[in-house]
């Protein structure tokens, strides 16, 4: 499973989780182009790279 990550204007991190229904008709790249804010760099990563401990979720940083 893949996730799309990008940095918000306030330097926080957003993580996009594609739905199965969308993946039946779109690629994850197409979903990224649609759902990532315009002109925002993003990266597609494996879900294993996303922390599962959300204790400090708001403190997560996006390292390019």
């Amino acid at each position, binding site marked *: 499973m893949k996730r799309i990550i990008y940095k918000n204007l306030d330097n926080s991190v957003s993580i996009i989780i594609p739905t199965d229904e969308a993946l039946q008709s779109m690629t994850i790249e197409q979903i990224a182009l*649609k759902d990532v804010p315009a002109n925002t760099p993003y990266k597609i990563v494996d879900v294993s790279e996303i922390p599962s401990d959300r204790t400090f979720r*708001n403190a997560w940083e996006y390292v390019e």
Partner: protein
Amino acid sequence: MAQNDLVIANQSFPSFRSDLNSALQAIQTTHSGTSLPTGALAGQIWLDTTNATSPTLKFYDGTDSISLATINYTANTVDWLDSSVTITGLSTTATGTVLTLTDTAHTTSVNMILGNNTALRFNELTANGSNYIGLKAPASLSADLTFTLPSTDGTSGQFLKTDGSGNLSFASLSFATPLAVVGDNVAGASIRLPEDTDNGSNYVAIKAPDNLASNLTLTLPSADGTSGQVLQTNGSGVLSFAGVSSETKVWVNFDGTGTVAIRQSKNVSSITDIATGRYRVNFTTSISDSSYALSGTAGDATYGTNAGYITPDHNSISTTSIEVACWNYLGQVFDSPLVSVIVHR
């Protein structure tokens, strides 16, 4: 019935007279007998009476007797035996009527009979080959059957129909009673509408359910609806187009904890995990406007039955997505394990 060698020998007058009468009688009876006449010469015709009621007329070629026809004394008919006999002028050089079957004795037309399931063949132009169209009777018939052709031509697109008594006529396609597709439903009794044959052989089929408690008639609308309308019934099988007053445009059920996992959804391309307890629901297909209604819940495992709730970020409401926050019953934003978001329009 008599035969004679037709040779008058030198003899006394009584014998001569007797021999002459015998010869004349042989001529009168066409040399009737059960075997070739003694002294027969090439070119002689004689009647083989082996079958007394249906003798055979034969032609002697000097070696063999060739059967020409069988004469049926009972039916008073002649059956020509050699099917390869051709009649010059019947099919080659005649320019007018080439064959008329008429019973002159009774001044009525007679039948042409093609026996033993043989066919009447119509050949194509000789220059184009030797194919033909053949018409023939079924191999077995329980009774005589005669089709009488129409007295006049029909109009374009008409077809031949029968009145049930063998009288054919041209008629247009029409149904005085409901059109029935006859057959076993399991075997695919259906009305099929094929695609353009240039594109393949697929079709759209309309068929009944396999099991029906009673007859069901659906009456189509008398006019088309507008874009987006759906077919509805009045409960009596009368269909009409109607708009959908409202429907769920978007819904999603997801676990907002851990790495966030979406369980099921409709018209949702993705969930954006923005921060603790805050998520954006991204629509696959945009909604016509942003004047939609939002509802949802945020299940709170920590506090048991004290269900949480969601609120929209009013600055985020758009036709393509909406951001929601999950709140527990203490009024704290939290990561809910059971988030439901529903958008009605």
